[in-house]
């Protein structure tokens, strides 16, 4: 979704290469273990075909709109997980930290309390609290060297305990604030939806062509203009199709826009800034990064802060969706769904490889399975077994790809 040219494509497109050369280079990279987004696209198509055959509701505009709402929380949490995975760590606390975010946003807007803040303030506070939790966990990991697995496992338990304490005996807080409810429930008017699609396309085209022409001015290999235009057209078509389908039912959900905004923002951070570069460096070889003068500890802490903040926003989205917060928040399969989304989206558990947009595609797959099995009326066990199998397949693919990359390297 981001306008950044994926690194492997720009690597393949050395010089003003013809499309044949690019295809060949891409195939070589594929054989070398860099499978790119192929498995994800195949997966999305397969799941779509399967559930369309099984249920006549699955492939409808209304259900597509629903799907966006269902996948939003997990996807946003998964974006944060991507940063933690990129530095080769893990964050097991995101489930219950997002629960803290849900409870916090509900508590800060609670009518009749001394702190019934406006919705946006409550949202900002909830995200800030979760970011701070991430910072604390990251600091323990970075400064004391405690394995992230254990620190965030402890964080998981502490967060769960805090949720039970905060909700107290009443066990549930209702949400009345309009702004908070709008996060998951507001639907853009049809015209606004089209305007969003147009703005998105213009920005994407400007970004891609801007890169192309600045590289050409600098006399650098640019890649094939036809392919670049093709990419822009493809993504524009995807965006317009999405808006068209949503408008066919109620309209584009605001939360869909939130997902896109979060994914684009963090993609940009990861691929176009020094911070992002350093994240990949720490994940690839922390010792080399340290010797190159990168503040490895700071990078680690910031990645956990991002993970916490995204979990907080995810919690707000989930709370808004259900109009209230209760003791089940942050639990269930939320944590594993979020991690699975990132890993299925091609982010390596070994650190240093993967893209933020992977969280979007992984979140889409997780969301589609959950949505589809519900529609078909399958028992819960089928949902769990399917998600588990796909996660296992994704991790296996990652491991094999890594081995092949090492083999291809020497």
């Amino acid at each position, binding site marked *: 979704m981001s306008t950044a040219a994926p690194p492997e494509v720009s*690597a393949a497109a050395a010089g003003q290469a013809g499309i044949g050369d690019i295809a060949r280079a891409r195939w070589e990279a594929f054989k*070398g273990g860099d499978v790119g987004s192929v498995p994800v696209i195949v997966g999305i198509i397969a799941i779509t075909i399967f559930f369309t055959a099984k249920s006549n509701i699955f492939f409808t505009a209304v259900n597509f709109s629903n799907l966006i709402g269902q996948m939003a929380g997990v996807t946003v949490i998964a974006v944060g997980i991507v940063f933690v995975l990129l530095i080769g760590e893990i964050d097991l606390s995101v489930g219950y930290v997002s629960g803290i975010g849900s409870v916090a946003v509900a508590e800060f807007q609670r009518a009749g309390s001394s702190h019934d803040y406006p919705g946006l303030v409550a949202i900002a506070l909830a995200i800030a609290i979760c970011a701070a939790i991430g910072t604390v966990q990251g600091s323990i990991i970075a400064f004391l060297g405690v394995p992230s697995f254990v620190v965030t496992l402890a964080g998981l338990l502490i967060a769960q305990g805090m949720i039970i304490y905060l909700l107290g005996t009443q066990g549930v807080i209702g949400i009345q604030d309009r702004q908070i409810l709008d996060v998951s429930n507001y639907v853009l008017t049809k015209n606004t939806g089209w305007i969003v699609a147009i703005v998105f396309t213009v920005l994407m085209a400007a970004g891609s062509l801007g890169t192309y022409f600045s590289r050409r001015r600098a006399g650098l290999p640019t890649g094939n203009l036809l392919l670049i235009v093709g990419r822009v057209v493809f993504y524009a078509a995807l965006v317009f199709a999405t808006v068209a389908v949503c408008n066919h039912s109620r309209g584009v959900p605001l939360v869909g826009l939130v997902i896109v905004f979060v994914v684009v923002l963090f993609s940009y951070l990861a691929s*176009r*800034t*020094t911070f992002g*570069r350093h994240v*990949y460096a720490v994940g690839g070889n922390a010792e080399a990064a340290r010797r190159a003068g990168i503040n490895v500890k700071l990078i680690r802490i910031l990645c956990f802060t991002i993970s916490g903040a995204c979990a907080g926003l995810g919690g707000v989205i989930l709370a808004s969706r259900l109009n209230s917060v209760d003791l089940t928040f942050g639990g269930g399969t939320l944590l594993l769904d979020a991690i699975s989304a990132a890993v299925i989206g091609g982010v390596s558990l070994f650190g240093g490889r993967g893209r933020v947009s992977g969280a979007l595609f992984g979140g889409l797959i997780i969301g589609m399975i959950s949505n589809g099995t519900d529609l078909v009326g399958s028992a819960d066990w089928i949902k769990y077994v399917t998600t588990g199998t796909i996660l296992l397949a994704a991790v296996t693919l990652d491991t094999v790809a890594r081995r092949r990359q090492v083999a291809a390297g*020497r």
Partner: protein
Amino acid sequence: MSATPAPPILELREVVKNFGQVHALRGVDFEVRAGEVMALVGDNGAGKSTLIKCVAGIYSIDSGQILFDGKPVSISGPKDAAKLGIEVVYQDLALCDNLDVVQNMYLGREDHDALYRLREAPMEQKTTETLASLSVTTIRSVRQPVATLSGGQRQSVAVARAVMWNNRVVFLDEPTAALGVAQTRQVLDLVKRLGDQGLAVVLVSHNLTDVFEVADRITVLRLGQDIGVYEKSATSEQEIVQAITFGKQDAEASA
């Protein structure tokens, strides 16, 4: 001292470094001049690594002096060494496999604007120029991940990175240790070119064949002491092996 008039860029005088009871360096003298390749040889435990780490700022020296451009300096951290223009290319641990050549060349020193957005075009241009100036021509694209490079190419990238930042003294720690014949050739040629470009190059190696091929002078360390500095043209592998193993045999050495 030899007849070459150029004063040394980097000079160590009577440098001592102890680790508790272990005397790693016991009063070592060492020097390297601009435009020369100085080999540093010695058996395991002779103090080569300790010497490098003292100069790189990873260890602080217990006594003695380090002079840079004839002036005494204190190196108390890697940043001090970098500021002086001393760069160490370690045998391994230098590159991030998942990043491409440009990203590795600029690791930790990325070119960015006021908003910390990367400026890829100038970085890529400079990388291409630097590799070309060192005649590193085997790398197909500077945008391919380092993981896909051969051992020799990786070492070339690590060396080129040291050169690109206008460093004046480059330490190469066992640059050919893990390489095959052709790749060793590649790296040795590169080392020679560094000397030709006016850098002071210190080559740390076990491999005397390599040393004799590229070095101008050879410093032998043994048990934390410098045995002597040998002009390559005036010595033989035989003599160096003797010095490494048994210490100085006669007064022939030129230190």
